[in-house]
């Protein structure tokens, strides 16, 4: 394997959401004992393109989910063979995120989009679903060894549960154990700052950038000012 044709096939496999093809290309690359940095970089570039096109309305959610699943399938094959933890454009796995829609709120699409983009960008994502009780989010992060807790809320009446997660971490002297990123329709950057969240993002692509920024930070969650990215 190697050369632009194989990478074009990989690109097509991801864009088409063809998991089987993506897995086969991954195995071919390993058998050829080639440097896997380049195809991983290609795959990362493709998934960024997919995310951008979703953001501008050129691609729709089903296509993005299938592309992300193909990307994940490819990464699952090649990750154990990567020579270093970090490769250009995308690491094997950036970190682990537990994500959910908070208690009292059963909206899922926004949370699903963010989870999809994080997975496609190299994060290990544990999706807790909807109506997640604050303490359950913390327990899941603890038991799963997550670095980040992502909390979505689509209603003003469920936003207090985002604050509740942070308040519980404070009360249990565990604020430095997890980075907390929040988002959702009525959730503003000012609100995120007010409740001492670590990250806020207006869309899924920005959420990935915020998570990248938080994990590369030299500071701790409790001592870090709000990290945010504007739309676009």
């Amino acid at each position, binding site marked *: 394997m190697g050369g632009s044709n194989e990478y074009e096939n990989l690109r097509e496999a991801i864009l088409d959401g063809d998991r089987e093809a993506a897995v086969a290309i991954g195995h071919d690359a390993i058998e050829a004992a080639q440097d896997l940095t380049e195809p991983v970089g290609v795959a990362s570039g493709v998934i960024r393109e997919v995310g951008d096109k*979703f*953001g*501008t*309305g050129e691609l*729709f*959610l*089903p296509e993005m*989910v*299938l592309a992300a699943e193909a990307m994940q399938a490819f990464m699952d094959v090649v990750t154990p063979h990567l020579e270093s933890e970090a490769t250009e454009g995308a690491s094997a796995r950036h970190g682990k995120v537990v994500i959910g829609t908070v*208690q*009292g*709120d*059963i*909206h*899922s*699409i926004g949370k*699903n*989009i963010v989870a999809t983009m994080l997975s496609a960008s190299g994060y290990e994502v544990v999706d807790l679903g*909807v*109506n997640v009780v604050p303490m359950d989010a913390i327990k899941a992060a603890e038991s799963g060894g997550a670095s980040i807790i992502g909390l979505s809320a689509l*209603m*003003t*009446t*469920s936003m*207090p*549960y985002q604050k509740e997660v942070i308040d519980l971490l404070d009360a249990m002297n565990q604020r430095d154990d997890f980075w907390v990123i929040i988002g959702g*329709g*009525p959730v*503003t950057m000012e609100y995120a700052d007010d409740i001492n969240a670590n990250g806020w993002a207006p869309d899924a692509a920005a959420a990935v950038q915020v998570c990248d920024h938080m994990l590369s930070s030299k500071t701790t969650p409790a001592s870090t000012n709000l990290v945010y990215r504007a*739309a*676009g």
Partner: protein
Amino acid sequence: MNLDRILDVLDKAHGGPVHKERDFNLGVVAATISAKVEKYGLTNTVDVQNPIGSDDDLADRVYQAGFEAAVEIGLLCSDTNRAITFTSEELQTAIDEAPSEFWLGDGDQRVHFQHRNLDDTTAPVWTVPLSIAVSEDIFVEMVHGLASIGVVDCLEGPSLETIYGRPLRSGSPYEHLAGRYQADLMFEGIRRAGRVGMPMDAIGSSTTHYGLLGGYGVEGGYRPKKDLVTILSIADFWTSYESLFKLTQVQVAGGSHISASTWIMLGGYAGGPEGTAVACVAYSLLMFAVFQGSRAGVPPFDLAYMGNSGRRAQWALSVSNQAMARNTNTVYHSVANQVSGPGTKALLYETLVGMTNMAVTGVTNVVGTRSAGGRLTDYLTPLEHQFGGEIFKAAAGMSREQGNDIINKFIPKYESDLVDPPDGQRFQDLYDVAALKPIPQWQQMYEEVKQEAIEAGLPLD
């Protein structure tokens, strides 16, 4: 309400086909909608240069595609992971049994809802505002101001951000208290406005069923025979016990009328504008079947900017409205989802476009305005609601062609800002709250845009 139908829905929610989330979203919803778009020749029929089309055949094909999709998809109950599905015969019976007209309210404030056709002069019904959060200390003043507007027929929101000074938490006992508390504040607001008897939608502050349990059909609360219960399902063919509890509470309290609605995400599992239009029809039909809606409706919501004032969404809104108006005799309702905030001309332009579209495409009732996208506390004022009602009622009776010409004049004024819209200002900044008068700058914007609307052909004077 028909108890046998309620029991049938509950039985289906506990005995219907089992689906996992991913498989339902992709394998059922996305696949079915995509197949219907192809089967009925709807691919690439979107015409963003003419968001309000006049193609009756297209509207009918969207309806047929939506009807078939409704039968094949059903609604997935998130608490049981089972789909509530109907045969074609069951679905058609539910549509036929939905009322073509009904009354709400009391005394001289009674309001008549009736089916509207395309280009119909029948007066539509304007319900305000959406359940946008408002500070507790100005809640009654806000309701007073909204209810004082002559073109306003009914009230839905606003919603409370706090009750008794405490944050209102979804699904908590605070929400249970909020049901009755909101009723008290709403009745006081309409009393001050001199509109006792005005119909209301229950219950804006509580998205879960707890508010309804606490404030509907209880002494001093919302009135089962006079008011409407709003049941909002989750987007894209999901429902839950929350919504089903609301259905059963209407039955238990001896209620008569439900508004069953939700939205379809343009760019979501239904895909582009054509799939979204089909899904809006399918989901609307299921709202009548599952919740026995006296009125029902499912507008699109574009994921690109979380509103529906853009061309793609306006097209999907128009076509799905037309499909329902031409092929059913139901009371259809919808929502204009603006993103710009009060105190900006952009909000008024978005409102003009959305309300004109719905007036000429057979919508009976609109609930609005979604000032500032509903995302900011206190970012709504009575004035944009007055403007929305004036437009809605003035445009009723105009043709689709006239409507299309008008909205094409105004969409260019805001469409480039939809992704990053102006927030505007709060009620407290744009009004003399005690006197319930807009500040001169906001009043002047309203007058200027109203004049533009008149010059564009809307009979507002």
